[in-house]
């Protein structure tokens, strides 16, 4: 009889969902992006991704003193996401250093998965951008050569650095499909949207963060973008498709650990990311601002969460 009256604190119902299952879903969502990256940028893209993922998994295993390389799969996701933000032309050691920094400084230093204040992959990228700017900015963005896996890539500047008439040489359809210069995983909006829909369908991401991020970028681009395509709507679309907005909004700003948990908080987070991105793009020194936007909003996530606590059912307004 006594054993039937066991009292335990909540939660009483457990979800069968594990961290490993979620990370597998993220990897599945990234699969179309990986395929497109290899198709566009050839073997160098593959090398970058393999090095980043392996380095991340090995670092995690060493830091945690575990023999299990895969563990909960979060290190592999971090490594792959980091590789997605690098140009295919980087020397092989850069994704390795980026992954080590991402796992140690971005994640384990704060206490491991769930405790990190900043998106680990973006911490790794930030250190790489500041340290080796010559490999990460300017004329390093590979020009895609679809379906020629063994060709060495040729590089050019990102569309975001071009001005005026030059921009019209970049058709929006190419930007949508990914046939433009850029980091491995950021060029093809189509592949990223497929992955994003998979995550949304599986319930891992909320529509508010990417939705508000996209809306803000579109509006700011249309209003302040200078009418690049002689058309406000198309200019807004250009800013949506260019650079890292798609991968940032769908895969990085939606990171469950580093974004707000409340509904209103997610709206504020998405709008903030979009605003900072566009401010850096339009008036800042860097051509692209998605990384710094997300990192900055990561920093204020605890404050957002604190001030957007929803009213409890039955609570009376004071």
């Amino acid at each position: 009889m006594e054993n039937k009256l066991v009292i335990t604190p909540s939660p009483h119902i457990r979800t069968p969902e594990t961290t490993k299952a979620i990370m597998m879903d993220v990897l599945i969502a990234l699969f179309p992006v990986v395929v497109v990256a290899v198709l566009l940028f050839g073997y160098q893209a593959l090398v970058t991704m393999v090095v980043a993922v392996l380095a991340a998994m090995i670092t995690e295993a060493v830091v945690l003193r575990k023999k299990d390389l895969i563990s909960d799969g979060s290190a592999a996701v971090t490594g792959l996401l980091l590789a997605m933000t690098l140009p295919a032309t980087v020397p092989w050691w850069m994704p390795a250093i980026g992954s080590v920094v991402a796992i140690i400084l971005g994640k384990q230093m704060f206490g491991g998965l769930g405790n990190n204040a900043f998106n680990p992959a973006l911490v790794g990228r930030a250190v790489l951008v500041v340290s080796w700017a010559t490999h990460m900015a300017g004329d390093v963005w590979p020009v895609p050569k679809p379906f020629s896996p063994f060709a060495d890539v040729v590089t050019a500047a990102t569309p975001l650095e071009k001005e005026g008439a030059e921009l019209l040489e970049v058709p929006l359809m190419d930007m949508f499909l990914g046939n433009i210069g850029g980091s491995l995983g950021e060029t093809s909006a189509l592949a990223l949207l497929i992955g994003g829909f998979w995550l949304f369908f599986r319930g891992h991401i909320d529509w508010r963060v990417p939705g508000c991020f996209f809306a803000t970028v579109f509006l700011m681009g249309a209003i302040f973008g200078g009418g690049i395509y002689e058309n406000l709507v198309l200019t807004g679309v250009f800013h949506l498709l260019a650079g890292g907005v798609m991968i940032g909004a769908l895969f990085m700003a939606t990171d469950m650990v580093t974004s707000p948990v409340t509904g209103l908080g997610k709206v504020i987070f998405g709008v903030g990311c979009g605003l900072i991105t566009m401010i850096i793009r339009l008036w800042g020194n860097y051509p692209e601002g998605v990384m710094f936007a997300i990192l900055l909003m990561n920093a204020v996530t605890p404050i957002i969460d604190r001030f957007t606590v929803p009213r409890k059912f039955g609570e009376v307004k004071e």
Partner: protein
Amino acid sequence: MSAYIQDIRRGILDENPVFRLLLGLCPVLGVTGFAMNGLGMGLAATMVLICSNVVISIFRNFIPKTIRVPIFIVVIASFVTMVDMLLAAFQPELHDQLGVFVPLIVVNCMILGRAEAFASKKPIARSFTDGLGIGLGFTVALVALAAFREILGHGTVFDIDITGAAFDPMGVMALPPGAFLALGILLYGVNLLFRKLGIE
């Protein structure tokens, strides 16, 4: 005699102002881009620390308790001004590199801390060795941190190229964020080492 040696040892190891007490971090983070700057800054602070410790120790029985801090500051500021002028006269290049961080030694809490905690209570000779020990500890820490940052950020130490041309310097280490990263990594390493050596 052993008390004096103990003072110096304590300043460098057990109570190292940077690695153990985390005091005076403003110059630690600000001027450690190059090993030479770290050494210059460390020696300048050591000089001020020894002089202020000795002077405060001499007058320790005449300083009224209620206004002791302003008096300490005046003594420290006088020596900082002297060191600043000496550097400007004999090492103008280093003086330019260190910039505002030399005058800022005045508000270095490590120096005020030693005046308050040690020199205002202990005899002159002990105050001298305490200043020497803490100053050397500060210098060692600054040079270690600066050398670490210079190797990673520029591939050199004391302007001598040690890594060769194939090394691609990690620019972030030469920039202000690198100071925080490098200090954190060094603190981890030093505390691990001290624990192994049994220094608590």
